Every structure is written in C-alpha cells, then in structure tokens.
C-alpha cells in the first residue's frame, strides 16, 4: 500500500536520508532499525509530509509526494512522533478530539472511537479531564497513539514508542502494537529496541548513514549475526 522510492532529506548541507526505498503491503508491520542518526525519524517525518524531501511516496498507487501533513492525514496516514508532542495544556479528551480533526463532522463515529480508546487505555479515561502535560511518560505515549488512531488511519507511522519508558510499560506498548496489527492496521515502526521490534514485525529494514543497509524478513534479520555490524558499520 505504501511505496517509497529514492527518498532524500537534507538539513542544509547534511543529507540525513540518502535515497531510501521501501514498501509496505496492506496489513503488514514493518520495522525500521538503525543507530541514532541513521535517518529513521527523518524518513518517517518525510513520509508524513512534515519534512521537505525529494523522491516519491505512493499510497495505494496515488503519488502523494510533497503533500502537506494535513492532506496526508485525510489520505489515511497517521504519525506518532518520537517527541510524542501531546498538547500539554489541553486535556486528554481535547487531545483525542483533535486526533479526529480530519473527520470531525462524523460526531457519532468520533464518540464511538473515543469510547474504544478508553476501553483500550483505561488510564486515559480516568484522566480525561486532566491536562495532558501532567501525565506520566507512559500515559503520554498511550495518549499519542490513541490520538493518532482517532483519525482512523490505514497506515500508522510509529516513531520510537518505547523511548524512555519503564520496561513493564514498554511490554504493554508492544503488546498493543501487536494487537493493532492483528486488527489489520498497516504499521511502519521505528525502534531503537531492535529485539522487541523484530519480535512483532513481519519485515525489517536496517538504515545506516541514511541508506538502507539491509532488508528482509524480521526473523532473518534477527538471526543475522552481523546485526551489530550493520548498526555500527565497519
């Protein structure tokens, strides 16, 4: 459903992403691995339309390269950035409401989805009137994932969902990612925690210095003894 060809992102003179190509089939969970600075987050932001990039991005055959992020959302792409970016002084409920901005006229559907999110994340229901900035890191991560799901995306871009969270919370987050995959959502997951990511993913790409250094089935990548080598180069 997603086909990225020769994606390039530059920050001034620095090329963060240099000709990355990747594809995701409907319902697939693909993980994007690599060391810090390998270009993973830039790749995701560029696909979401939030970073200027060269190359083509096709979604279900439609060329969506260079589209604005708001248009991408309407097309069915939702992004959870690594910086989480909850709206700190808005309540949990308001954060969720904005997640459904692109389909705000469907009031019944939005209300039903909100209820679904509260079933999925009971903590959010308890805290729905609380300012999002006062939530713990794990709760904020749940909130941003729930907020992204409120747009009813077909493709979810998840950037480092386990970053800075306690191990038990990380397990919960990964269990939930697996659950979303079972529900049929297509997911592109960027992770530092390679073993966890490979355990839930169908396929993986390893980025190094802005280029795809390896790709394959998650099990193959996990078994490859040179994973460390791929990460660190040499």
């Amino acid at each position, binding site marked *: 459903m997603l086909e990225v060809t020769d994606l390039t992102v530059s920050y001034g003179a620095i090329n963060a992403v240099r000709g990355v190509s990747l594809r995701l089939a409907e319902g697939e969970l693909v993980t994007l691995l690599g060391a810090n600075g390998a270009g993973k987050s830039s790749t995701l932001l560029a696909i*979401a*339309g*939030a970073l200027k990039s060269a190359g083509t991005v096709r979604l279900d055959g439609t060329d969506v390269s260079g589209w*604005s*992020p*708001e248009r*991408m*959302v*309407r097309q069915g792409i*939702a*992004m959870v*950035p690594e910086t989480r*970016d*909850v*709206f*700190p*002084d*808005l309540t949990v409920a*308001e*954060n969720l*409401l*904005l*997640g459904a*901005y*692109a389909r*705000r006229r469907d009031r019944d559907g939005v209300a039903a989805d909100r209820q679904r999110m509260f079933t999925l994340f009971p903590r959010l229901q308890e805290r729905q009137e609380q300012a999002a*900035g006062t939530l713990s890191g794990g709760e904020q991560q749940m909130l941003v994932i729930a*907020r*992204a799901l409120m*747009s009813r995306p077909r493709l979810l871009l998840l950037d480092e969902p386990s970053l800075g969270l306690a191990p038990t919370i990380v397990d919960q987050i990964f269990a939930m990612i697996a659950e979303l995959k079972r529900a049929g959502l297509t997911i592109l997951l960027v992770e530092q925690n390679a073993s966890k990511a490979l355990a839930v993913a169908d396929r993986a790409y390893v980025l190094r210095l802005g280029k795809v250094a390896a790709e394959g089935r998650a099990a193959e990548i996990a078994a490859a003894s040179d994973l460390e080598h791929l990460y660190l180069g040499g």
Partner: protein
Amino acid sequence: MQTLLQFTIDVLSLGGAYALMALGLVIVYGILKLVNFAYGELIMVAGYGLFLVNGSGLPWLVMAAVAVLIAVVTGVLTEYAAFRPVRAKSVTAVLITSFAFSTILQNAALLFISPRPRNVPLPDLFSQTVSFGGILIPARNLITIVASIGLLLLFAFLMKRTVLGIAMRAAATQFRMARMLGVPANLIISTAFAISGFFAGVVSLLWIGRIGSVTPGVGLEPLLVAFIATVIGGMRSLQGAVLGGFLLAFINTALNYLLTQDLLQFRDAFTFTLVILILLWRPEGLIRGPATGQRT
C-alpha cells in the same frame, strides 16, 4: 469609598480595553511566534471605516459593524500580503514586511484622507454620564467594561468549546503536530489574523470613543500598550495577555491618582520603571505558558 469605586471603574474600563488590545496581538504571536507590527493599523482602519460611513444614515451599530469588518478583512489581508509570502523563509523578513505594511497603511491614510484628526460618528450614549454610588461615571467607561468582559468570556468559551478553538490552542504549542493530525495550517493562521482584526476593530470603537477622532497614527499607542501588556503578562499565554492588560491599566490609573501635577507628565517613566521591575522579577512574564512552542 467613593474614590475606591471610582478607581475600580477606571481600572476596569481601561484594563478591559488594554486586555482586548493585548489579546489581539498575542493570538497571532501565539501561533506564529511573530509580532504583527501592523496591528496598530488595524485599529486605525476601523477608525477610518467609521469616519467614511459617517453620513450614510445607517444606524450607529451597523456603522460600527462595518468598521469592525474592515479591521477583520485588513487583518486577513495583512497575513496574505506581509506574512504568508515570507513566513517560511526568515523571521527578519516578516519583521520588515509587517513594518512595511504598517507604514503603507499609515501613508495611505495620510495621502488619501488627511494628516489631521477626523471626527467619527459616536452615539450620544458615549458622551453621557451615569450617576452611581454618589459618583459620576462616563457611560463609555461602563460600555467598555461590559463590552470587554463580554468579549473575553465569549472568546474563552470559543477557545475551550469549539473544535477550531481547541485546534488553535493546540497549534500555539505544537504547530507541526497539529498539522500532522489534519489541522490545516493556513486556516489556523488566517483565523488568528481574523480574530486579531476583530479585537482591533472593537478596541478601535472603544478607544476612539474616548478621544472622539481618528488620525493616521492612532494605532501606535494601542500597539505599544498591547506589546507591553503581553510582555509583562507572558507572550505565550492568552490569560497572560489579559492579566497584563489589566495590570498595566492598574499601574497607569494608580499613577494618575497618586502623582502630583508636576510629576504626572513623567507618568510613562514611572510606568516603564515598574514594567522593568516586573520583568526583572519574572523575565518570562507573569504567566509562563507551555514551555514548548516551535516556530512555524
């Protein structure tokens, strides 16, 4: 007791006007992290709008609505002319284009109307006084209090209860994230400028209601007031702008009451000294607002 009542009403009416001025400036600053230096001219064009429709025979409220509408349209035009073309490129460029737009509007008023003050139509109510609790109060002060408190409440309600209002608050802290949820950047920015124009239009009616006439430079003082009020209140916060407006009005009014005739001509020096002291104590302003806030 009477002095206290008089003082309170003076502070509230001046503070209401100041708070509206500050809100109009900070609503744009909050989203774009840029000061719109053409803000004072929005106040001016509303004043000239009122002057131009004078003699049309329309009821005053209709003329006032036309004047406010002119300010709203000019606000949105400011965005299209001075901000949108250079917004993504450089902060310096936007500073210069907003100054340029301000100068163009002022010069247009000088050239096409007159450098001299022009009288604007005002309803008789503006020059009447009301006797209350043993003191005489100009009715326009009461109108200012009622109008500003009403607008502040309405504004707070819209920002809290409507999806667009919530989206605007979100965009003020995490603009890119708001866009990644489908909130259209241009809609948010244009709305901010329209609201800014609306406040400027209302301020213009209340402000010119005090002085009775409009000049090309009439917007300078409100711009300065709005800027100082937002700086002491906290540039990132809407509540801060309102608080700053009322605080500045309190300081000015208190100085009016306390200073002797000789010292009154130096009132601004006293005011700014106090502003400096406040900023030394709270450099970020009284209300800090959310810490993040990337420029767009």
